[in-house]
């Protein structure tokens, strides 16, 4: 989970950086998008990324099922909030929400850009921006990014702990970085969606 998680974290950071260009200029985004669609290394990485997602999802579901079976009898009265954070206890739920969003996202963008007729648009920017004109589409996006933010709030620092990276000097810093990072991702993507909704 940790290795694939950190790999996906690298991907989503790059994704955000490119998407932020839509708020800067149409040409800049189209150029970046064109680069991503044509660069041979990126084409190879696409398959690595798909594998990364698949492994992360399958391992996550498998891990949850195994962990659930480790406690066949539940407590009549349990207070998990007394000792652990919400994001750490809801990884499968936020993960599943992001997965549902991912299907929608891939259908509307990835499939259209790569295999479809781009909804009739002649450039990537117009395809991306137009969908945000619909309020419910923007709302789904913002909700999905909140779920992703909660997922990352635990996931970022948890990945380091799983790989054995716990140190009195660096762990507090990693935790702070994780908290800032998840806000940047959630707020960054949400801002893009809201920006294009307002300007539509």
């Amino acid at each position: 989970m940790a290795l694939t998680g950190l790999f996906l974290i690298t991907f989503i950071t790059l994704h955000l950086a490119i998407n932020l260009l839509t708020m800067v200029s149409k040409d800049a985004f189209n150029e970046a998008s064109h680069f991503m669609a044509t660069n041979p290394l990126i084409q190879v990485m696409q398959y690595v990324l798909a594998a990364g997602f698949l492994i992360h999802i399958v391992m996550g579901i498998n891990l949850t099922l195994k962990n659930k079976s480790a406690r066949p009898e539940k407590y009549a009265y349990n207070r998990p909030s007394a000792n652990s954070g919400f994001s750490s206890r809801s990884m499968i739920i936020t993960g599943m929400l992001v997965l549902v969003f991912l299907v929608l996202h891939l259908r509307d963008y990835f499939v259209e850009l790569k295999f479809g007729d781009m909804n009739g648009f002649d450039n990537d920017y117009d395809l991306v921006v137009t969908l945000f004109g619909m309020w419910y589409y923007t709302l789904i996006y913002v909700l999905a990014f909140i779920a992703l933010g909660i997922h990352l709030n635990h996931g970022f620092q948890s990945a380091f702990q799983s790989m054995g990276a716990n140190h009195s000097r660096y762990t507090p810093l990693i935790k702070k970085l994780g908290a800032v990072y998840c806000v940047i991702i959630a707020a960054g993507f949400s801002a893009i969606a809201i920006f294009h909704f307002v300007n539509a």
Partner: protein
Amino acid sequence: MNLTLKIYRQDGPNAKGRMETYQVADISEHMSFLEMLDVLNEQLVAKGEEPVAFDHDCREGICGMCSLYINGEAHGPDRGVTTCQLHMRKFKDGDTIYIEPWRSKAFPVVKDLVVDRSSFDRIMAAGGFVSVNTSGNTQDANAIPIPKTDADKAFDAATCIGCGACVATCKNASAMLFVSAKVSQLALLPQGKVERTHRVLNMVERMDKEGFGNCTNTGACEVECPKGISLENIARMNREYLKASLTADKD
């Protein structure tokens, strides 16, 4: 104070469990939680009913025998204490208190609030020891220089009393805090380093076989641990395991 107790009762290992409600009156706030249960049991015995079975031994927080999931928390609402050290002053007159056994596939219920924690013993037997020649000329341990920080970390890990609160409180019923404390206390010291590679592999293998869940780093165990065992130990065990699985010789 007067209290309502909702206690899990199960007549035997294969019997079906149920929650029973009991009333106890005139409980002193200076009593420990187990003394309060003693009062209840005296009442039950006087009435000719079966007393509530629960584990206990030293009653001073060091043996690791007492357990109990009290109002949704392992060893109750106080921090850094075992159930025997939990004072009744942590509760209020009129409170309803839920008392349940540790819940884990690897800790089957024996009777009422007593669970079988021998899975921990089997994990220890798989590698939680150092092989020392005791033929009469054993080297004085104090003759081996050990950095103060390592000695402190090893001692902190060694304070684990194996009560199982980490398993009980973990949403995955994972035993990682316990196993990592045992792996750490030995891996940090020169005497334990000799067998470190196979120790961590064998103990983790045994842990998985016993049916404990996996660690997802919620950190609940560290909060509820009566001895304050740190998550640092879990990271250390992860490092030990990673290193060992990459470098261990083929059997």
